[in-house]
């Protein structure tokens, strides 16, 4: 297999297969640490508080929120779009990067996919509780009924969203679990205690690793990746249709689908970085999630962040160029109206700050990347808030203009979903391998630092190294 000599190694520390198993399965077998327990307790309490607030909302109705007749969508839909956006990185990493043969994906795909599933769970919660009468939520599905039968409106983007998000959740879950089965079998075969053996035996589905099983595994992974690639692009496109097909100035724009998809990937990668930088530190996985991985993700952040920035500016230009006074007012009001702070917060966090990653030193800095990943997620939350609330709060009749502030119930529901998300992620990180072990092993001979890069010791790739530094022909000669 030919590897360009400019590629950095993706697995450091001259690992053998046995060591890799030990490093990645070890944390699963170890006793939970005090830090982990403290973290789970904290996030768990946050989640419980959130669920209590959801309970109150269901009991007393959404009058407990700060919504009013003018502003009918606010934090709830902001949070929904924010979480769905975060959920886009996992499938992007595992599907699109698989098709593009990006090998660094193997180090981060497992936890990014888990993150996707948990984020979509948090996202799905918001439209459901926003319905007010959650016990009638099944009305959104087309089922034969005695009311006519009256079916849902198949021409409505809101119904498309139901299908898009439920499909996305299902397919992401399948993709994630299919990849997890061989690694759970590794935990099963190493298990020392009877209980652990039994549990992992159930969840590893009887995997043996025969050649035929792997052949089907690879075929399934490739086709699922092929299916998920348009799927991941379709989900946020359809979410953007919820806005773009309306006639509200500020929402009614054709730029929304690509702009939302880029924003989703932007925020998703930021969340992956936030979580992975913590995970690699706690589980000592620096040799598997290297600076090269972080740099690759930061490059995607530059790309998608710049697309988002261009989209913001295009919106402003279009508002001016359209000569439509409602459209123009929507944008003047966004940047200079009562919600100016959210607009400028969004602009600073999303347009200016990702450009700092053009500096190589910064995009290879762990501390700076962690800080930026949080900034980006704050900025992307502001973006959705700006789009939703500022477009609604001053509508066509001046007498109905209004201002929205969230209530404590809404704030704690939002914080509760963050707690819920973190709790699920912490539990996942404790019971399952956070790195796709089998996939990382399959790239060892290509991307391990004993085979490639400046510390290579393996004789075979030494020759390649020498040739590569001297003659260009050897660069393009397949091995």
């Amino acid at each position, binding site marked *: 297999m030919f590897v360009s000599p400019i590629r950095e190694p993706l697995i450091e520390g001259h690992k053998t297969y046995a060591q890799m198993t030990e490093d990645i399965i070890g944390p699963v077998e170890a006793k939970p640490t005090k830090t982990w327990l403290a973290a789970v307790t904290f996030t768990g309490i946050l989640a419980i508080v959130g669920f209590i607030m959801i309970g109150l909302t269901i009991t007393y109705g959404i009058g407990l929120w700060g919504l009013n007749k003018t502003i009918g969508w606010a934090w709830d839909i902001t949070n929904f779009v924010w979480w769905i956006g975060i959920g886009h990185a996992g499938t992007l990493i595992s599907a699109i990067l698989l098709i593009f043969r990006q090998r660094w994906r193997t180090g981060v795909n497992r936890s990014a996919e888990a993150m996707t599933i948990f984020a979509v769970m948090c996202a799905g919660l918001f439209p459901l509780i926003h319905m007010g009468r959650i016990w009638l939520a099944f009305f959104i599905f087309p089922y034969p009924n005695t009311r006519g039968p009256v079916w849902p409106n198949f021409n409505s983007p809101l119904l498309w969203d139901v299908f898009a998000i439920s499909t996305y959740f299902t397919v992401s879950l399948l993709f994630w679990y299919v990849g997890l089965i061989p690694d759970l079998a590794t935990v099963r*075969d190493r298990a020392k205690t009877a209980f652990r053996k039994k549990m992992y035996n159930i969840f590893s589905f*009887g995997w043996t690793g025969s050649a035929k099983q792997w052949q089907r595994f690879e075929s399934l992974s490739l086709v699922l990746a092929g299916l998920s690639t*348009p799927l991941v692009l*379709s989900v946020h496109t359809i979410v953007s249709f919820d806005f773009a097909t309306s006639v509200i100035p500020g929402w009614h724009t054709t730029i929304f689908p690509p702009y939302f998809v880029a924003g989703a990937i932007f925020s998703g990668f930021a969340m992956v970085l936030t979580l992975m930088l913590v995970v690699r530190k706690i589980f000592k996985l620096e040799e598997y999630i290297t600076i090269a991985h972080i740099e690759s993700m930061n490059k995607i952040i530059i790309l998608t962040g710049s697309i988002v920035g261009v989209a913001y500016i295009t919106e402003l230009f279009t508002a001016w160029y359209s000569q439509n006074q409602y459209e123009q007012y929507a944008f003047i009001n966004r940047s200079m109206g009562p919600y100016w702070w959210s607009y400028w917060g969004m602009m600073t966090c999303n347009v200016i700050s990702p450009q700092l990653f053009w500096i190589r030193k910064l995009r290879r800095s762990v501390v700076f990347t962690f800080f930026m990943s949080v900034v980006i997620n704050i900025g992307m939350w502001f973006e959705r808030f700006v789009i939703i609330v500022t477009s609604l709060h001053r509508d066509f009749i001046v007498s109905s203009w209004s201002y929205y502030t969230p209530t404590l119930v809404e704030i704690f529901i939002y914080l509760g979903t963050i707690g819920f998300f973190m709790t699920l992620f912490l539990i996942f990180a404790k019971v399952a391998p956070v790195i796709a072990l089998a996939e990382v092993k399959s790239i060892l*001979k290509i991307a391990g630092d004993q085979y490639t890069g400046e510390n290579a010791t393996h004789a075979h790739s030494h020759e390649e190294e020498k040739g590569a530094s001297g003659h260009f022909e050897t660069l393009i000669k397949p091995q």
Partner: protein
Amino acid sequence: MSAKKVLFGLFDDEEVLLKAVKGVRAEGMKITDVFTPFPVHGLDEAMGLRMTKLHSAGFVFGATGTLTALAFITWISTVNYPINYGGKPYFSLPAWIPITFELTVLFSAVGMTLTYLYLNRLAPGQEPKVLDERITSHMFAMTFEVDEHTSEEKKEEIRNLLKGQGAVEIHEKDLEE
């Protein structure tokens, strides 16, 4: 794998294993199965395995999803309960593309995964026949089916062949125990 009793060699490197698979087959010996901790590229060709038809199943499931969505929405919107939405035609195909697409993906993914689990005999609680506990970690196994009629000479021949091809350990295991 249906073999009841197997003789198997363990290898510690996939490149050695790949060469061994080719070497053993060149000797005219039939390999029952090969077990690896991760997908080894080129192994299925080296073993002479047929390409899986799983992706064809995926296409059929996907096409079922497309047709289901289109037929169902068309029937509802034009026959069962037509409603005039903003003067649009009852049969408004462009507006149905998103749901049709999603159901295509859903049917294909779910159908293929279930087929995959069925073909690979994977289910919660399924008892695996583990030859060696290191196979899911860092060892590669090449197995040969043997039974009570297999002569000692034949077994010895397999053992020598495995040793010659670079196997680091050779064991015999009764999978019915």
